[in-house]
């Protein structure tokens, strides 16, 4: 049994690929645990960032600068009464949030945090991702129907129509990205070009293709990559019912969309699912267009000096966070009431500083590189989500569908065709 475990460590493939069930389970635990922690952190970040956009402070009371707020929310939701409407369809009502949760978490199986740090490397990675993300529509529709009242039903139908139509646009953008993996502009027939490699659907393959071609797909065939990325960015926001496209939860018309009748822990499952879907979709965007786990400018700024500089980044980031925490401690009012909070914040700062120092230790530094850069890029997307939410008013439903079908789709198909032509012609 022991060698079964250690045998995997030597091989340089993903656990799923090497069929090693034990390590696959470990990876799943790590990734899912990481995602839930990320969701909690995202919850805190969203409330604080949104507040500072709107010149207010956001949660300050629970823990220093509201740091314990997500935990307080979680406890509150767990202890809240879990109401099931009288004539609701018990089974469907119970299973709907589960489906949404499974759909959004299933995407992480293929998300590559590093060359070997992915749960498995399906050679149909992207296809699997598209398929699973379309499953969450089922959950939404069922949630709306099961709560057996008109507002959630209309909200559910609206949001599922929105998700289905933006999935098509998303698919177009993704296909044009995959086309880029194989077309180096060299081989006459991209697909069968035996030269440097065949097109691939596997996520790790795509990232490695970007590295080999020394260009992020965002900048490949200059305008096309960018437009495809733009379409994906818009479609991904609509796919997760966020920011300008959060019509189903538009308070002004329908009360709260498909999860109106849910409460307590069941409702928090929806929130967990929504945030997980957000992180999942932005990690796909990072993989496809921003060169997965490679550090920025992997090829142009090569040489060990640059490697050293970039490798220091993780440590510096954590030390910076620790500095901000200590700045907060210094600015905390001296009143005894705040003593607990100052100690808490100081402790938090110390922990961050410690992590920062550990990250400078060479062996740790190399191993952490891939994961750090991937997570940093995804975090950038998260901030984008919050920024959208603060600035944009809401689309009306028919405008939303118009943008989906009449704007994104034609451009998507156009980009697809142009990429193919450019690939063959160049």
């Amino acid at each position: 049994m022991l060698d079964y475990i250690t045998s995997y460590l030597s091989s340089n493939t993903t656990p799923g690929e090497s069929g090693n069930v034990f390590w696959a389970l470990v990876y799943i635990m790590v990734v899912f645990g990481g995602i839930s922690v990320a969701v909690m952190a995202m919850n805190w970040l969203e409330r604080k960032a949104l507040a500072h956009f709107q010149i207010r402070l956001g949660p300050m009371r629970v823990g220093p600068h509201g740091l314990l707020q997500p935990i307080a929310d979680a406890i509150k939701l767990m202890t809240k009464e879990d109401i099931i409407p009288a004539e609701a369809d018990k089974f469907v009502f119970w299973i709907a949030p589960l489906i949404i949760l499974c759909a959004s978490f299933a995407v992480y199986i293929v998300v590559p945090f590093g060359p070997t740090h992915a749960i498995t490397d399906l050679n149909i990675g992207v296809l699997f991702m598209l398929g699973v993300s379309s499953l969450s529509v089922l959950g939404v529709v069922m949630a709306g129907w099961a709560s057996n009242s008109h507002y959630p039903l209309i909200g559910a139908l609206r949001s599922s129509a929105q998700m289905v139509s933006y999935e098509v646009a998303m698919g177009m953008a993704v296909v044009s990205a995959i086309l880029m993996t194989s077309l180096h502009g060299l081989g006459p027939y991209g697909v069968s070009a035996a030269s440097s490699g065949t097109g691939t659907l596997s996520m790790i393959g795509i990232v490695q293709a970007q590295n080999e071609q020394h260009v992020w797909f965002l900048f490949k065939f200059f305008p096309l990559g960018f437009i495809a990325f733009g379409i994906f960015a818009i479609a991904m926001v609509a796919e997760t019912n966020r920011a300008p496209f959060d019509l189903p939860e538009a308070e002004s018309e329908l009360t709260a969309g498909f999860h109106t009748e849910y409460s307590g822990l069941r409702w928090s499952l929806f929130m967990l699912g929504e945030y997980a879907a957000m992180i999942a979709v932005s990690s796909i965007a990072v993989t496809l267009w921003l060169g997965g786990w490679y550090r920025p400018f992997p090829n142009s700024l090569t040489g060990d000096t640059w490697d050293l500089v970039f490798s220091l980044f993780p440590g510096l980031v954590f030390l910076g966070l620790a500095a901000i925490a200590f700045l907060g401690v210094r600015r905390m009012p001296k009143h005894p009431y705040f003593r607990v909070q100052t100690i808490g914040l100081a402790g938090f700062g110390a922990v961050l500083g410690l992590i920062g120092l550990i990250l400078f230790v060479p062996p740790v530094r190399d191993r952490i590189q891939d994961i750090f850069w991937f997570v940093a890029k995804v975090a950038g997307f998260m901030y984008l989500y919050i920024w959208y939410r603060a600035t944009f008013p809401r689309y009306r439903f028919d405008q939303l569908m118009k943008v989906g079908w009449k704007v994104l789709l034609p451009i998507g198909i156009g980009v697809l065709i142009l990429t193919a032509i450019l690939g063959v012609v160049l």
Partner: protein
Amino acid sequence: MQQAVQPGMQPVATTFFFYLLSGFTLLSGVFVITRKSPVHSALALIFGLLSQAGLYLMLYAPFVAGVQIILYAGGIMVLFLFVIMLVNLERSQREEQFNGQWVVGLLAAIALGGLFMTVYVKGKSLFPYRIAQPVENTNTQQIGLMLYGQYMFAFEIASLLLLVAIIGAVVMAKKRI
């Protein structure tokens, strides 16, 4: 670039998973028929399709599994659920679930049972001896080649058919657009 199929790839089709997935498929098949409310049977159908996708994976056909998830579970079943919800199904729920022709049902069951028995008893001799040899490159590429290579014509006809169907649907639901 990693090869399509490494020689060291352990067989995914461990027997445990096989029985598990086929069991799920059968179970959901039964549920589809017996459930009283149409939404429950639709859910059972979705579950059945997903477990079928798992079976495809075991036959080294990830592309078909992916398509199965996207098209069947993600696309068609959503439309099923839409139709079930929008059309007011109260009357059908109250009708007698199993109507009279159980005699015909019984005959069909016996015939099918006989077929299964013959296959089970005769075993291998019924089928020509072929083992599923590993394919030379990835399943998706193979399908891509054939789809756009040999069966190009059929592919175009199918897309034309779909186009006509879409236009028909639009005309049917058209108000004065």
